[in-house]
């Protein structure tokens, strides 16, 4: 009888130990999972690419005045792009976005025009690999102007914002 009582006590202690280990594990798991932020930078860069593509080409043709100096200088304003960010982690001082649009002759692949906006310093990071680096999206599309000239348009969109998207 005495032996049985001792065994029961031991099993109770064991049960409590397991209960605490499992509960602690679940708490740690939940906090680790929900403590991590969602990485939305790829979606952000994709939206940026789409917005710029819509700005430079419409109904199959390049918009009038796209291949001009005025468009290059007022690109952000014309395309209604706002690269302002929250004033945290020194983001204001160091731009968090960069976009580059290259217009190539479709047949010869010679560059005929180029537009860029944002922090150019982010571009070299696109050649590196790593979670804590900016997200870069490179895409291409085909367009023609009203004179029938054919263009290959290469677009590069870069979003940094590492601190809020990766931990």
């Amino acid at each position: 009888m005495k032996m049985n009582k001792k065994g029961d006590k031991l099993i109770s202690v064991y049960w409590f130990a397991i209960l605490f280990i499992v509960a602690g594990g679940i708490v740690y798991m939940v906090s680790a999972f929900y403590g991590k932020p969602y990485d939305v930078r790829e979606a952000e860069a994709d939206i940026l690419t789409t917005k710029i593509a819509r700005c430079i080409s419409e109904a199959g043709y390049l918009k009038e005045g796209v291949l001009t100096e005025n468009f290059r200088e007022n690109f952000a304003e014309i395309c209604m792009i706002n690269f302002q960010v929250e004033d945290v982690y020194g983001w204001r001082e160091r731009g968090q976005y960069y976009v580059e649009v290259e217009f190539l002759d479709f047949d010869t692949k010679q560059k005929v025009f180029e537009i860029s906006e944002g922090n150019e310093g982010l571009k070299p990071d696109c050649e590196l690999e790593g979670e804590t680096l900016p997200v870069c999206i490179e895409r291409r599309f085909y367009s023609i102007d009203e004179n029938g000239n054919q263009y290959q348009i290469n677009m590069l969109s870069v979003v940094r914002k590492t601190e809020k998207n990766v931990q």
Partner: protein
Amino acid sequence: MSSNFINKEHRKKGQVGETVTWIVATVIIIVILLLSISVAVTDIFDFKKFNYMKKTDVLASKSFFSYLLTESEGGTSVYKQLGAEDNLNEFNGVLAEKIFKKFYGDEYVHVWIGIQDTSEWQGPGSDLGFLKNDYFGGEASREFLNFVGETFNAGGIIPLNKNKNKNIILFLSKL
């Protein structure tokens, strides 16, 4: 042998069996817990990557519209050529290859452009009228359409006649 000795032996075996069961159960609990924690911490399934599904690939559909508006040396647009002819010709076929295969071939597993003629469509189960062409092959089979229908049709469909039974289609599928 006395019955007392046999009872003692049985009790010992029972205790050993019970202890082993407890140890195995503990190990299973710990392993499951550690596995779950490692999945949550390392995020190997990319749960924290914001996944989004685009209904239309804007850049591909822009390329598609520009492609249809491109004129050959004779001044006839690809759209008009496709409307007048039954399938892709050398000019618009090669151009389509240069645009869609080169630009989107790496991004998508399936890239197909061609004509669908539904004028002889008999209803569900009949041939869907996808015409094979020399540039994008014969991928436009029923299996391909079903497959794409379930996943991603990011390109575009443009009718080539008033009855809308002859269409030029761009299929892009990531799976």
